């Protein structure tokens, strides 16, 4: 099971970033440990959400944990087989734990 989270920084105590397209980086949780990947979509002049979605897709995760997705990023990720779940105001570690305890809701539509 591979989980990707939009993150504020490179540490498991960092908060899940509210922004998806322009989040600081992506945290990857796999085999009980975190690693971090740059969000190349972040500095785009336009289409940051689409760029960030491509970064996530290339990581081929099973699950994405984030707060909300814009209409374009949602459209792209919804085409994939990635499960998308919502978390608000929690650390990366807490988000993963809550996910494992089935406490997170599915993001069913784009935020606008």
């Amino acid at each position: 099971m591979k989980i990707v989270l939009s993150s504020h920084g490179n540490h498991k105590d960092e908060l899940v970033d509210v922004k998806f397209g322009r989040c600081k980086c992506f945290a990857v949780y796999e085999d009980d440990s975190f690693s971090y990947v740059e969000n190349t979509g972040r500095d785009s002049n336009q289409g940051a959400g689409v760029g960030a979605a491509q970064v996530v897709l290339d990581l081929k995760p099973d699950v994405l944990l984030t707060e909300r997705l814009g209409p374009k990023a949602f459209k792209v990720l919804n085409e994939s087989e990635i499960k998308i779940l919502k978390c608000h105001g929690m650390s990366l570690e807490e988000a993963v734990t809550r996910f494992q305890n089935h406490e997170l809701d599915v993001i069913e539509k784009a935020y606008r």
Partner: protein
Amino acid sequence: MDIVVLSGKGGTGKTTVATNLSVVMDYSYIDCDVEEPNGYIFLKPQALKEEEVFLLNPVFNAACTKCGKCVKACEYNAIVTVLDKIMLFEELCHGCGTCKLVCPMDAITEVERVIGHISYNDTFAMGLLKIKEPMGGPIISAVKRIKRKNRIIDAPPGTSCSVVKSVEDADYAVLVTEPTTFGLHDLKKAVELVVQMEIPFGVIINRYEVVSLMDHYLKTENIEIIGKIPFSKEAAVLYSKGHMLIEAPSYLKVFEELADTVKRRLNESRSG
């Protein structure tokens, strides 16, 4: 000769100045405010010809291997690959053609997509961007290709790419402002823009009543005031009915003086 009318702040009177000046100077009027052109309301042009404006969008054929080269090359994040699919976000595509250039499989063809149109006759032209389309640039380029000997170019508000495109290659710039804090704030940005683009310019203060912070700024910066349009109910009434200000004799005089000043500055910049 091209004279561009811009302002920074919206609603200061660009179109009022541009339309009235075009009639008094006998210049063609070109409306580059393609998101909301309104010069036609006052000039009431007849027998307009119309042309559609296209953008080239990529279409991916069966040869596409989803290698992702075009995705990486796209400066605008317009293309994504999801599983075995490739998706294009038309509204993000600038039609630059980079995807086609980098495609190793020759899997991309380009198709024209209508994003708006231009309308014109001998003395008038305007562009209109379709609703929901985000990019006015190609429409502005198309409407500016309508060449006339002498043109007044009505720029969009702000100082963004579309304004730069409208201002480009102008021989003289008329900056229209109003004596308010917002007017001054945005005028400074417009001044910066024309200075950087090395276009000679002068300022018109619209809705002028008394000496204000505006006069102070212009004096300090040594910027020429080429005209003042007095604040009056008469002007507001004419405008609200879609009439030209020059229908009132007092305003005709204002615009005739303005035209003389602009012509002098144009001649000076041409000889200087």
